[in-house]
């Protein structure tokens, strides 16, 4: 995964609370066997009408948010099922950072595993960003090392993140990458045990 130290990107606002995993990626797209390619289905029922035509009112369809990599949304983002298809879709669409007043637990865990930084901000900070993002090309910068978010107009705030996920995101490690650093210990363990083979 790409390390995430300093990230600068266009902000796309979706001003709704309780965006659940069914809305992030509707059920009909779960039977795919790939992990990639879910981006095209992100927020499908909001982005497209019944005939499959883009809904011009939805931010993701508006030209001013083209190429956005920072998503700002209302509280309890990612609630619902544990499906990993939700963060897969968010990431595949091109988002690296989500800012919201709160996140559902499982979704938040799943973001780290997929290299997405979920920033918990205050309701006020989120509303400020929502307003500012109405201006075309509004950009935020996130410095993960220092745990700050800022723009070019002097708006700035700090955020919290636990050490373990921070380290993983900063270095672009996926959990497997981290674990493989213990390869030697795993190999030692294997040598010390009688393992029962399946073949």
């Amino acid at each position: 995964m790409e390390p995430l130290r300093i990230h600068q990107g266009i902000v796309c606002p979706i001003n709704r609370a309780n965006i659940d995993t069914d809305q992030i990626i509707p059920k009909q797209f779960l039977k795919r066997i790939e992990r990639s390619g879910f981006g095209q289905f992100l927020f499908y029922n909001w982005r497209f009408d019944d005939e499959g035509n883009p809904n011009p009112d939805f931010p993701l369809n508006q030209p001013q948010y083209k190429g956005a990599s920072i998503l700002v949304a209302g509280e309890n983002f990612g609630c619902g099922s544990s499906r990993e298809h939700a963060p897969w879709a968010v990431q595949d669409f091109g988002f690296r950072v989500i800012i919201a007043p709160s996140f559902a637990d499982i979704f938040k865990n799943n973001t780290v595993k997929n290299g997405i930084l979920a920033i918990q901000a205050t309701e006020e900070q989120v509303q400020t960003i929502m307003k500012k993002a109405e201006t075309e090309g509004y950009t935020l910068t996130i410095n993960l090392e220092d745990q700050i978010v800022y723009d070019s107009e002097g708006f700035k705030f700090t955020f919290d993140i636990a050490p373990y996920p921070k380290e993983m995101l900063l270095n672009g490690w996926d959990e497997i990458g981290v674990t493989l650093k213990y390869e030697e210990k795993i190999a030692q363990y294997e040598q010390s045990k009688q393992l029962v083979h399946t073949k």
Partner: protein
Amino acid sequence: MERPKNIIQKIWEQHVVHREEGKPDLLYIDLHLVHEVTSPQAFEGLRMNGRKVRRPDLTFATMDHNVPTRQRLVIEDPISKKQIDTLQQNCEEFGIPLAHIHHPDNGIVHVIGPELGLTQPGKTIVCGDSHTSTHGAFGALAFGIGTSEVEHVLATQTLWQAPPKTMNVKVKGKLGKGVTAKDLILAIIGKFGVKFGTGYIIEYTGEAIREMSMDERMTVCNMSIEGGARAGLISPDETTFEYLRGRKHVPQGKAFEEAVTRWKSLATDEGAEYDAVVEIDATEVEPQVTWGTNPGMCIPISANVPNPEDADKANDREEIKRALEYMGLEAGQPISSVKIDHVFIGSCTNSRLSDLRKAAEIIRGKKVHPSVKAIVVPGSFSVKMAAEKEGLDKVFTDAGFEWRNAGCSMCLGMNDDLIPSGERCASTSNRNFEGRQGKGARTHLVSPEMAAAAAIAGHFVDVRTFSAQEVG
């Protein structure tokens, strides 16, 4: 002297590869079971990162969820077919042994693991499937994992896991005649609720558990997850060892005796402690039937469907009301008066040979009620063969049951076995969630004996007095 330990603590300690402050433990996984639904993205992840499967020789795959049980080799749904074909390709590419649909070892993942002797005491076992807890019946630490974790185990044969809290579910006394392992686990979940085990790993102990066969113990452990516990297990004993002796992947001869000595030392020590203890009296358990939309919503066959007005809390009243509405039941109606349209005997909870034998005993020489459609889906190809050798298939088909091929089938309806909306099914599976067996389908969980009796009577009946009854 060392502090006495319970079996959960012993197995955990034996599998810690690395431990450090501020991190979960890095736990070694002895056996990784794989099926077609939760694995494709994990394999793709490996490919994208150029990674290999660390221990294909500790991994075993089967196809079960999507497998058609009528005509085994014709998969009409293109997506199901794709998942099956993908698993086959992945297993070939990464060198993982696979019990393909055509293979005699094929069956539901939680049925074949024990059958093949892959499931053994003291092992850590994972699978991208929440009913992995089944394997705990052998004194193994077995739990379900998500797709990222599947990939993690494929790549590293380990998982980062915080040490669990342990709980002892003590079963006092013996089960009465006609009362089964399924009734016991339903009664436990009914009594303590669907969340009582959250954050814990359970050990089941007590006389009733000791008296159970391995098939029965698997039924109990299978539904641990329905009580919120990721894993549930039973200390191994002679019953366990006798079941395993001579099985395909178990050490043979002198090596087996040595293994037994090791396995014996796993059992919970005298005086070991748990983080929590709950008790249930087996002598008071009656045959159970679920009336609602989660497994905790169950009552004895002699009872009436609950009335929302009797609940203390407003939330509970709402929940009961919603469940009754979905299930199309009247508050206060005797559960034995509820007529059924379908019977499903199968699933990783109750599709083993002894389950089929007991159900066959009930229906032998009788006929399925004219308004009921009944099917039997053996848990594995080998269960099917063994049952046919004993003539059980004849007993079922003579009574009017359909005799199917092995698979998950109607347990979750990913293949074409679905219950139509609004229709009612007496099912030996483990989940009665809304829509589980089909959109609008109404599922009642019961034991194989109770399902068989209901098939004949056309409604729920007390299996303890059933054989004596006039059937009609």
